[in-house]
Structures are given as C-alpha cells and as structure tokens.
C-alpha cells in the first residue's frame, strides 16, 4: 500500500514538473481554431507546423543567432579567464590572492539587478550600448564568477604531484599547465562551458537594457512579443520551445557532469 501511494505522489510531482512543458509543445503544434477556445481539449485533433513556419519567416533566426554569438563569446572568455584564475588561486600563493578570492565570492553572490545602473553607465561611456559586444561584457559579469568558482573546484581535484613532476622536468609553469593540467580538466571544462552557456542564453535583464534594434537576443525579443495587442500564443509557444530545446539537449547530453554545476549555482535565482 505504501508503495502505491509513493507511485501516485511521484506521478503527481512529475506531472507538475513536466506538464507545463508538454503543454508548451502541444500548443506550438495546435491549429489556431483549437488554440483560442475557452475549453481546450488536452490532445489536439490535428497538428500544424504553421506557427513554426511563421516564426522562421520572422526575424527569429536573427535573434537566435545573436543569442548564440553572445553566449559563445561570454562562455569562451569566462572559460579562459576563469580557468587560469582558478588554477592560480589553488596552486600558487601570491600577493593579492586573498583579495581575488574575496572578489570572486562577492561577484558570485552579487545580484545582477544591483549592477544594472553602474554597468550601464560604464558601458555607455565606452560607447558599447546597443551592440552585441556590450551584452557579452555584461554577461561575463555573471558567467565569470561562476566559471572561476567551478574551475577552482575542478583544479583542486587534480593531483598536484603530476604538475610538480612536470616542473622538475623543466617544462615551466605555463607549459606544465597547458600540457599536464589542462587535459585532465576536460570534464570540468565541459561542465563549466555548459553552465556559462546556459546562464548567458537565459539572461534577460542586462540584454534588455543594452540590446537595440537588430542586436536583440532571443529572450528580449520574445518578451517584446507579448506586450503587443494581438498575442499570438501559437507562435510564442513555438519560440519558447525553440529557446528551450538547446538547453535541455545540452543538459541531457552532459548529464553525467551536471550535478556539480547545478549545486554551484549554474542557474541563479
């Protein structure tokens, strides 16, 4: 009997978690005459691709391309800078190390909204408001602390003796890092890249303030869709499905590695 209740409770919770997502996908495939009724049936009697066609005929591809470019650059910068910094603070003692660690924790915890005004002022004085470069820089403020934090914990897991042997062999610090440590950090790098990418792909606040004209990212453009008078829910659900797919696919492909990233705050808020 206890087992039956357990299965029922589990089914309810799974339904709560997945139901909205199934509804999103179903709605994106539902013909208009079945979408805008006051008593929608659970399963549509027919499917349509018209919403996806409509989305692809609009500027959506441009928005997704922008999001992709921003996320890739923000991820690359955070990965390079975060890995070297994570390496520095775990392997070496040097003046300023403590300060860097404190800055890292503050940056990691710092809520984005508190950075909005000053970051906007700095970017606008540099003439970077409106373009993708400005969005990349803004996203790095979010992804870099996470990347450094994650890479620090991955470097800690690599045995020190390997590098020391390399140093003794006369490989030098930098080449020792490149040839010995870096290959051992592969899974760490994959995890960190995935979560940096998700954070940037997901980000709305900074992008909504910085992006202008053709340079909007997908979340910003999608948010603008709803405020218009005639809400095209079919197209909106198609867009939502499209913006969700890359993240969920990444998540399942890299599922072996996700736990550390998630618990380290791979998704803020």
């Amino acid at each position, binding site marked *: 009997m206890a087992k039956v209740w357990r299965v029922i409770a589990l089914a309810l919770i799974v339904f709560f978690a997945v139901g909205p997502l199934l509804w999103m996908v179903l709605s994106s495939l539902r013909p208009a005459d079945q979408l805008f009724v006051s008593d929608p049936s659970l399963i549509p009697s027919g499917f349509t691709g018209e919403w996806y066609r409509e989305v692809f005929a609009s500027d959506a591809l441009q928005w997704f391309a922008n999001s992709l470019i921003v996320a890739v650059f923000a991820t690359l910068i955070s990965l390079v800078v975060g890995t070297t910094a994570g390496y520095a603070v775990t392997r070496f003692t040097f003046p300023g190390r403590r300060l860097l660690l404190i800055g890292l924790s503050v940056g990691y915890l710092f809520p*984005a909204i508190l950075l909005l005004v000053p970051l906007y002022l700095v970017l606008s004085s540099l003439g970077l408001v409106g373009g993708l470069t400005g969005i990349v820089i803004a996203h790095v403020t979010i992804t870099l602390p996470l990347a450094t934090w994650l890479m620090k914990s991955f470097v800690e897991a690599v045995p020190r003796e390997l590098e020391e042997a390399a140093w003794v062999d006369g490989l030098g610090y930098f080449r020792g890092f490149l040839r010995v440590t870096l290959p051992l950090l592969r899974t760490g790098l994959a995890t960190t890249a995935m979560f940096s990418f998700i954070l940037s792909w997901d980000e709305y606040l900074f992008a909504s303030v910085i992006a202008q004209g053709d340079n909007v990212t997908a979340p910003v453009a999608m948010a603008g869709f*709803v405020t218009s008078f005639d809400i095209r829910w079919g197209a909106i659900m198609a867009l939502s499905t499209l913006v969700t797919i890359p993240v969920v696919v990444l998540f399942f492909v890299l599922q072996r590695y996700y736990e550390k990233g998630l618990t380290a705050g791979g998704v803020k808020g």
Partner: protein
Amino acid sequence: MTLRPAFLSRGLTGRQQRAGMAFALPAALLFAAILAYPIFESFRTSLYSIDLLTGDASFAGLGNYSALFGDAGLRSTVVNTLLWTVGSLAGQILLGLAAALLIDSDWKGMRWVRQILLIPYVVPVIATALIWQWMLDGHYGILSTNLQGAGLLETGVSPLGQESTSLWTVILVNVWRGFPFAMLVFWARMQSIDREQYEAARVDGAGAWQEFRHITLPNLRSAVIALLALRGIWTLMYFELVWLLSRGGPAGSSEVLATYIYKIVMGEFRVGYAAAIATAAGLLITVIGLIAWLGTQLRRRTNG
C-alpha cells in the same frame, strides 16, 4: 634583511609567486573593470541626482538616501519582496524535500525520473514566464479556464491580473522553477547518510516517520542552511521571473525590489535614486550575511 617583496626575488618562491600572479592577472583585471569599479560607481552615483533624459547631474549628498524613507511605494515593495522570498523558499524547500524523499529509492528507472524532475530548473526563464502566462491567460489559458469553470475565478480573469492573487501566482511559478534545485541538494545529501543508522533504528522498532524525523532531517540541516543562504540572496533580488510574468503589477501588487529599481531606471530615468536603493539593498544583504556568518562562527566555537 631586505624589504624587497618575495615576488621580486630570484628564488623558487619568487618564481612561483610571479607565475601565480601571471595566471591570475586576466581575472583580476576583469573583476576590477566589470565588478569592483561598477560597484564603486554605483555608490558614487547614489550621491548624485541624475536624469538620464536631460543629462542633468547635480550633487545630492545623502538626499537620495533620505528620500528612501519617504517613498511609500518602496515600503509596500519591501513587504512584497519579503513575502516573495519567504514564500518562494518555503515552497521550494518543502516540495524539494518531498521530491527528494520520493526519488531516494533504487527502483529501476529512478535515474530518469530524477533527470526529468530537474528540467524545470534549466528551462530558460523567458520560456517559463511565457508558458505560465499562456496557461494562466484569462480567456484561453488551460489553468484559468478550469479555475473559472470551478467557480474559483471570475470569467475572463487571469490570476496574474488581479491584485489579490498576482504575488502568490508569481511565487507558485518560482516554486515550480526552483524546487528541483532543492531536491537535488537534499537528494545528494541523503546519499551520504550512513545507511547503518536506518538499520539500527529499524532494529529498535522505529517507523518510517520516526526514521525521517530523527535520522534524515537532522542530517539535512546543513543543506537547508546552505540553501537558505544562497537562494535567499538570489531570490531576494531576483528580477527576471517577476518582471516577465507580471511586470510587478497590477497596481504594484507583485512589485519586488528588483522590478522597482528597474522601473526607476528604465521608466523614470532617475539613475541616482535607483543607485541609492541598490546600494542600500546591497548593504542590507551584506549586514544580514555578516550576522549570519558570525552566528555560525559563534555556534561552532561554543559547540566545539
């Protein structure tokens, strides 16, 4: 005795320190440029009265800060923010705990159930907001129309669109989005509980409830504290979900600090005042964090 710092010396220590500094340099520069400097700027800006539209800027001293106390909108916003934070965290932790207990079994396929339950946490927040807006749409939304059919909601109304329910609806969506994280943290912690404790309890004739109460819960204490600290800060100042779901409305009924600041910057262009709210909120969080940290330190000392 030389006064030369070690990193300038020629020995091994000197070389190692230089290597460390070289590896840290890019991050140090970036942190300084995009975090430290803006935070300093934020404080400086808060001392000015700035209008982005006209470009006027004049020194206001602490004027922006004293204006905080006379801001009636801010007061109800702070109350909402506290409700939002407490409600979201309580919901996420309770549902997360229930889910963690349910997936903590060696049934076949449980790994997949765990994966599936984690999905809401990685769905982009824009998609989350749009899905729920659609389901809660007053005319065609599946949830709203069913609630209306059951007589729990007036016809044509969305729970996001009426003042009495908007905040709680936004909280519900945040629970949907955040409970998988709590589940993961609890579940991971449960895996490290010594199974012998349960066997010993069973020998003593303990029931499932007593096992949960006396073994599982005490072992999850540290996880709960960590969750509350981290998620507490992020939820307190979380912007995206509230903004995208309700824009803080209707009539400010779901306004939280983050959306309030955003509106003052983007809607009213009063940058100095927004910076003052941000700085005050930042200071408040820091103070609360310090007190919590000191508390755990003191506790550790008296216990050990």
